[in-house]
C-alpha cells in the first residue's frame, strides 16, 4: 500500500520563469520511451546543459548548494503547454517533491496530482516573498510544506494554501483512482446504455468509422 505522506521539507530552488512550459521541463528527445525510466536526465535539459552537453554552472539546480533540491519555487503558469506527463515523472525522478507557484497549466496540475507531485498554489505576492527571501539568504532557502495543515513555512514566512479535498486525500493517502472508478462500473454501463439509446450516432463511432474506411480502401484496391 502507499505510505501516508503529508510533509515535505527541504531546499527550495528559485526558478522564477513565467510560463515555463512542459517542452522546457522535458524536451522532445526524452519522449521516445515506452516506459517512465531515465527521465531525470531530461529535466530542464536546455537550462542545465549547453548545446554540446556541458553543465551550465550558473543554473540554480547545477549549483552545489542546491544539490538535493526538493521544492521548486516557480513562476506563474508553470507547466503550461503540452500534456506530456513525462514532465511530472522526470521532476519526481530528479528528486522534486513539490512545486510552488501562483498558477499552473491545467493538464500539468492534474498530472502532478495523479502522481503525488505536490503542486502548491500560493498568491503571487506570497511566491514573490519567498523568492525574495531566497535571493537575500546566504544559504539556500529551506521550506516545510505541511499538507495536513495546508501551510508553507520558511524562516521568515508562514503562508496558508488551499487545495481540493479530493486532491489533498490523493496526495496524503495515495489513491487507486482507476480502482475507485471501476467501483462505478455498473453505473457507467447503465449510463452508456441510456446515452446510446438517446444518441445512437455516438456509439462505437471510432470502430465503425475505421471499419468503413478499411472496407473502402480494400474495394479501391480490388477495383
Amino acid at each position, binding site marked *: 500500500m502507499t505510505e501516508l505522506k503529508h510533509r515535505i521539507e527541504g531546499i527550495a530552488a528559485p526558478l*522564477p*520563469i*513565467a*510560463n515555463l*512550459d512542459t*517542452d*522546457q521541463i522535458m524536451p522532445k528527445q526524452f*519522449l*521516445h*520511451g*515506452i*516506459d517512465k525510466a531515465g527521465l531525470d536526465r531530461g529535466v530542464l535539459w*536546455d537550462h542545465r546543459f549547453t*548545446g554540446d552537453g556541458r553543465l551550465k554552472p550558473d543554473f540554480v539546480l547545477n549549483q552545489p548548494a542546491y544539490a538535493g533540491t526538493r521544492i521548486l519555487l516557480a513562476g*506563474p*503558469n508553470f507547466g*503550461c*503547454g*503540452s*500534456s*506530456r*506527463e513525462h514532465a511530472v515523472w522526470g521532476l519526481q525522478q530528479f528528486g522534486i517533491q513539490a512545486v510552488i507557484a501562483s498558477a499552473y*497549466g*491545467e*493538464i500539468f496540475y*492534474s*498530472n502532478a496530482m*495523479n*502522481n503525488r507531485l505536490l503542486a502548491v498554489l500560493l498568491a503571487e505576492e506570497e511566491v514573490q516573498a519567498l523568492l525574495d527571501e531566497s535571493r537575500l539568504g546566504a544559504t539556500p532557502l529551506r521550506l516545510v510544506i505541511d499538507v495536513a495543515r495546508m501551510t508553507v513555512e520558511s524562516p521568515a514566512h508562514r503562508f496558508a494554501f488551499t487545495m*481540493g*479535498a*479530493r486532491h489533498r486525500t490523493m496526495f496524503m493517502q495515495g489513491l487507486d*483512482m*482507476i480502482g475507485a*472508478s*471501476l467501483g*462505478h*462500473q455498473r*453505473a*457507467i454501463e447503465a*449510463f*452508456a446504455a441510456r*446515452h446510446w439509446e*438517446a*444518441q*445512437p*450516432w*455516438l*456509439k*462505437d*463511432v*471510432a*470502430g*465503425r*468509422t*475505421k*471499419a*468503413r*474506411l478499411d472496407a473502402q*480502401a480494400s474495394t479501391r484496391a480490388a477495383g
Partner: protein
Amino acid sequence: MTGRTLYRKLVDSHTVTRLDEQNVLLFCDLHLMNEYTSPQAFAGLHEQGRGVPMPAQNVSTVSHVIPTAPAEPTGHRIIRNPAAALQASNLRRNCVRHAIPLFDTDDALQGIEHIIAPEHGMIRPGMVVLCGDSHTTTYGALGALGFGIGTSEVEHVLATQTLVYRTAQDMRIRVDGRLPLGTTSKDLILMIISRISAQGARGHAVEFCGSAIDALSIEARFTLCNMAVEAGARGALIAPDQAAIDYVLARAPDIVGELRERALAHWARLASDDDAVFHAEHRFDASEVAPYVTWGTSPDQAMPVTGSVPAAEGAQRLSTEQALRYTGLAAGMPLEGLKVDHVFIGSCTNARIEDLRAVAKVVEGRRVAPGLRAMVVPGSGAVKAQAEAEGIARILIDAGFEWRQPGCSMCLAMNDDILAPGQRCASTTNRNFEGRQGRGAITHLMSPAMAAAAAIAGHITDVRKWNIASSESAA
C-alpha cells in the same frame, strides 16, 4: 432554474455520477491516442490486469514520431529511429491486443489525430472527446467538448471510458464584425491570446460566439479552438450551426433517415441558454485583426506584422527580456523584413486543405527565396491526396517547397524534422516555446498565407500587400 451554458449542458449530459463538489465522473464518447503519450498507460493497465471495456470508442494514430520524408520506393514509411519505431510497434501491439482501431504508419489515411478524427466524421456535436494531447480543444468547432489529458488519465479512460473531471468556469469570447482581407482565424486567435495572455483563459471553458465566428468556415473554427489552449483554456466551444451540421453529415454516412432527424433535433439544443451566466466575458472587434506574428517565446507575445518589437518594461519586463534574448531581437526592431531561414507549413493548427489552398494562392507562379528551406507537411493522408488532386502539391513543388508525408513533424520536432540552433522559422504551428522546433531555434507563429509569403520573400512580410484575396473571408 437558471439557464445553462453549452459547456454545462455537455458536462451534465456526460456525468455518470457526481463524485464531490468539484468533480464528476465524465463519460468519454471518443478517446484518441498517439504513440508517445499512451505506452505507459497501456503498461499500467497490463500491470493491474485490467482491460478496455469499450474499445470501439477509442482510436489511435502514429502521428508524433513518424518521419515525413517522401515514401520509400516500396511505398512503405520506415521509422529509422529505433526508439520511435518501438513506440509505433508498441502502439500496434496494444491496439491489436485490445481491438482498438488504429491508423498505422502505412495506412493511407494516417495523419495528425486532430485532423483525421473530424475529417472522417468521428467528431460529432455533443460529444466529449479526450486525448493525451493538449490540442484536443480543436473539436469545439463542431460543438464537441474536447480537451487534453495526461497519461495517467489515458489509462483511466482506457479502463473505464470515463474521466475524473474537475469542472471549469465558463468564459464567453464574443467577436463581431468582419475579418479584414488577408487575415484568418489564426490571426484572430493570436490577437486574442496576445490580449488576454497565455493564462487568460486558465480554468475556463471558452465559448466563442459573434458574427465573426459565425462567418468562419469549419476548418477556420478548428484553428481557432485548437489554439484556445494557448490561452490556458480547458475547453473551447462554438455552438453548432448549419455549417457545422453540414460538415458532420457530409462525413457521417451512418447518420441517415430517422436517425438524422433525431440527431438534428438533438443538435439544435446544443447552445447556451439566453439567461446562462458566464463567469468571465471578453469582446473583440474582428475589424481590428491584422496578420499577427509572434516575436517572443510564448504565444501571447504576438503583434500585427506592422508592429515593432516591444521594449522590456512594466510587469512583463523579465519575461520580455528573456524572450528577446532567446529570439535575438531588440526593442524597436520592425517585424516586417526580419529574415527567416526556414518556413514550416503544417500541424494540427494549420495543415488542412483550406490552409494549403491559401498557401498555394500566395505561392502560385513564384519561387521560394534562395537559400531558404520551405516544407509543407499535410495534416493527413486524405489532405495530402486532395491537395495532389487539386493541383496544389504541383504548385508548391514547382515553387521549391518540399512536399512531405503527413505527421506532426516540426511543430514539436519529435521526429527528424528539426531545426538547427539559431535558425529562424516562419511557422503555421501553435507554440513558439524555447527549443520547441529545435534547441536554440526561433519560431515565429503566423497564418499559412503569411508563412507562404515569408517563404517567397525570404523574410517576414505583410501578405495584405500581395493583393491576394483571403479564402476565408471570401467564404
